[in-house]
């Protein structure tokens, strides 16, 4: 689509926001598919504003201590741990 708002730079930008690296083939494929899918979503413009009565209520619980996972259980699936902590990449 020639007037498509989607170009490879947009897709790369969104992939950056979502923290997902894409290779060139994926970038090309997604650019084409996103144009189709977003064009299809355009039809939402015809939806009228609807007064929705919310059925939602707050659900509260008392502030009491319960058993949770042990430190060992919580760390069990981590690729890397150190001294009982998760080990992540450097921040800067």
């Amino acid at each position, binding site marked *: 689509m020639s007037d498509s708002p989607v170009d490879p730079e947009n897709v790369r930008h969104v992939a950056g926001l979502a923290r997902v690296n894409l290779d060139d083939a994926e970038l090309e494929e*997604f650019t084409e598919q996103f144009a189709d*899918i977003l064009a299809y*979503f355009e039809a939402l413009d015809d*939806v009228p504003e609807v007064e929705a009565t919310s059925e939602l209520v707050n659900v509260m619980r008392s502030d009491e201590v319960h058993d949770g996972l042990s430190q060992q*259980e919580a760390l069990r699936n981590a690729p890397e741990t150190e001294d009982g902590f998760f080990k992540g990449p450097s921040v800067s």
Partner: protein
Amino acid sequence: MSSEHNSFITEASVDGSDDGPLAGKTIAIKDNISTEGVRTTCGSAMLADYVPPYNATVVDRVLAAGARVVGKANMDEFGMGGTTETSAFGVVENPAAPGHVPGGSSGGSAAAVAAGEADLALGTDTGGSVRNPAAFCGVVGIKPTYGLVSRYGIVAYANSLEQVGPLANSVEEAALLLDVVAGSDPHDATTNDGGDDSNYADAADGNVEGLTIGVITDLLEGADEEVVDAFQCSLDDLEAQGAELTEVSLDSLEHAVQAYYVIAMSEASSNLARFDGVRYGPDVESDGNWNDSFAAVREEGFGPEVKRRILLGTYALSAGYHDKYYKKAQNARAWVKQDFDEAFESVDVLASPTMPVTPPVLGESLDDPLQLYLMDANTVPVNLANLPAISVPAGDVDGLPVGLQLIGPKFGEETIIRAASAAEQ
């Protein structure tokens, strides 16, 4: 691969208690439902080695009811797909239609039941993921009213839409499994008491005398002619048993698929942010900083459909597009809900074919994601409106199964179970 149809990602044998309503029954658990000590992959390379330290509430409940867990069922990656072909653990063959997909995303659950590898199965239904494979594999599947069943221990895809649902070979067995898993749970604040002390199994009595069924004409327009013929046959059968048929049209449904995908993708982009390779996930070497490392793990761990949905969801929520996509989709959702509420003022249940098509041939669907999304036209409105629905076999087209979908009002599980039990062939 383990089973003949690749229904299971992991085979297991976890015994339940000695007695209970499910004693002696075997059950398959979809692999996005946490099982303590048994790996739970969500069909993704991201969680290929993930072993949950606790059971989902629904798993505790089926074990306490006496069922034996025989395996973790294959599925579309994180529930994102309608054919089970996006699984990182290989495709599942439809036992009822060899060479065809089993549907999805709970394709392994439906296939395990259809092939007799398990008596019962649990799946999850975010936009049709229990009803779609039930229809394609010729078994029964129920999507409960939102909040009827606990989601504690389910790996989240789109929280506001998804529910755990039962699959079985008969309406009564599916209803019995729903009795076991339904009911409020202090661990999930979105549960309600609508399913406490339920007795859905007893509602499968086949009595539809005087029941009013509204046929949703909007959902016949895009369906294959042969599918509509099979659907019509099962309606005629219900009419012969004393049900009353009428036609219903819901204008909002034209926008349901768009609204569903915008909302589901937006929620997915937020939910799947947790997969950063620190607490779980593959150990990927990266020299860069925090952000570079995350992006590298996520490139490796996620398959194409999951990336597609995360990116589109991120886009729909990003500055400048939120009002255009997300807010409009929420309006459409409220509209759909309103349309259903109005329809239920004059009918007891609504009916449509579960799927507008018969199961596609394996390997033919993934090239065009938009076409796959359109296949969900008949199932997603139910999730948007938080309603219960059941898919029950309604014959076949040249050997390919067709499903009849019956939709009820909020907490109308008994009514749809009763109607489905009459439609059972």
